[in-house]
């Protein structure tokens, strides 16, 4: 099993969700986060004073998937989140040691 962690532009969430639903992924967790990459931050001006906003709002998505579905999931997230502009985000994948569905006690791939 793998845990896919994606940082995306907030306004691409609907497209990513649609893409994941399109390949039959059932669960998705979203967190509002702030950060920066190559995009750096941006400037905002209030009453003539410039403020550098170095941490800008992003969404962090977490999806747990069976190994054989990993490529399809990365592909779906990548397509949904893509605009071609700097700041589109990143996708990370880590090994997942175990999973439990709390309601039934099912384990691992059955719990996904």
């Amino acid at each position, binding site marked *: 099993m793998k845990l896919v962690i994606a940082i995306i532009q907030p306004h691409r969430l609907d497209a990513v969700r649609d893409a994941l639903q399109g390949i039959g992924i059932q669960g998705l967790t979203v967190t509002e986060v702030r950060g920066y990459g190559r995009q750096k931050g941006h400037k905002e001006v209030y*009453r*003539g004073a410039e*403020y550098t906003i170095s941490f800008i709002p992003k969404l962090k998505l977490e999806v747990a998937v069976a190994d054989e579905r990993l490529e399809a999931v990365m592909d779906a997230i990548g397509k949904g989140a893509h605009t071609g502009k700097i700041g589109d985000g990143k996708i990370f994948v880590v090994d997942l040691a175990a999973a439990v569905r709390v309601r039934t006690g099912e384990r691992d791939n059955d719990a996904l």
Partner: protein
Amino acid sequence: MINGADTAWLLMASALVLMMTLPALGFFYGGLVQAKNILSILFQTFAIAAIVSLLWFAFVYSEAFSGSGAWIGDLKAAFLMNIERGAAHPGTTIPESVFVMFQMTFAIITPALIIGAYVERIKFGAVLLFSSLWLVLVYAPVCHWVWGGGYFASLGVMDFAGGIVVHLTAGISAIVAAWMLGPRLGFPHSTQPPHAPWMVMVGAAFLWVGWFGFNAGSALKAGSDAGMAMLATHLAAATATCVWITIEWIKYGKPSLVGAVTGAVAGLATITPASGYVGPVGAVCLGLIGGAVCYGAVWVVKRGFKVDDALDVLGVHGVGGALGSLLVPFVALIGPGGVALARSPLAQFAVQGQAVIVVGLWSLAVTFVIIRVVKAAAGWRIGRESEIQGLDFSSHGETGYHTAG
């Protein structure tokens, strides 16, 4: 003779002006600070409202409005011992109780305006002591000079609703307080942007509406003066809003909400002393000038003075109030609807200028002394750790936003 219509309007106006502090100023300033300091702003406005009210009752109303001294009132109305249920305030058709209440709401908002200078780094006890001493030693004497039959009243100074008494005193004292307190940590390079620009707009909108009570109420009766004052007030605010939108659009390519609502408040501060004397065209002219000059003043104070008057009290209120006060004799003559001057515009300008200079210097010097006293008695600035943690928790043990659960 008490008049029912006049009394009804002044009751309404008193409520509107109190609304300018509770909650309008709290929102206007609260949205501009960081999220960790929102409650401290709301609390400071609320506490100042309560303390000023009691001081007003105890002796400050008497100090401002009782007696005929040139420089200070007497104590005959202390604890409102002179009040009679059925008596009108001398020279008006409203009950003494309503006059006391209406003027009290002005006394409340004026020290509360100064909050904008010292936000995010002052001790709560210092706020209370400073505001109390400032009310007694700056606001009440100036109020007496201009509105209470004192020196400038006898010279015939024109300050309809408080360009000098409210906005100039607050603006000058604010810059002194900000200078003596030192800048916020990280100023000017890493200070944080407003945490809730929408809240700034809500506050400004309440201020705009409340200002109808402030200016049109200052006619002290219902009727044509109140009507023209409300119209002038509204037009000046609308004009100055458009000025700020235009300047920012040209300068930055994007007009900002915070800029637009700041423009409205600048226009309102500028029209305040003139509101009862000008017609609609004069009001629009004053809104144009006030909007542009206050925009420049905010810029100059921030970049030029290098003093952290955090929420631009001097640039918006002090400069707006002084500017409107100086221009009254000229804008009153523009277009129909203004009042006839008692003397030539230049002679009146000389009176206005004298009042602005004397009141400005008094505010500056006395605020300086008050702060020295407050520093010694109650402390002044919070510690570095408390400032980083935010005043909400470090001073009040509360948190403005609980985001989970």
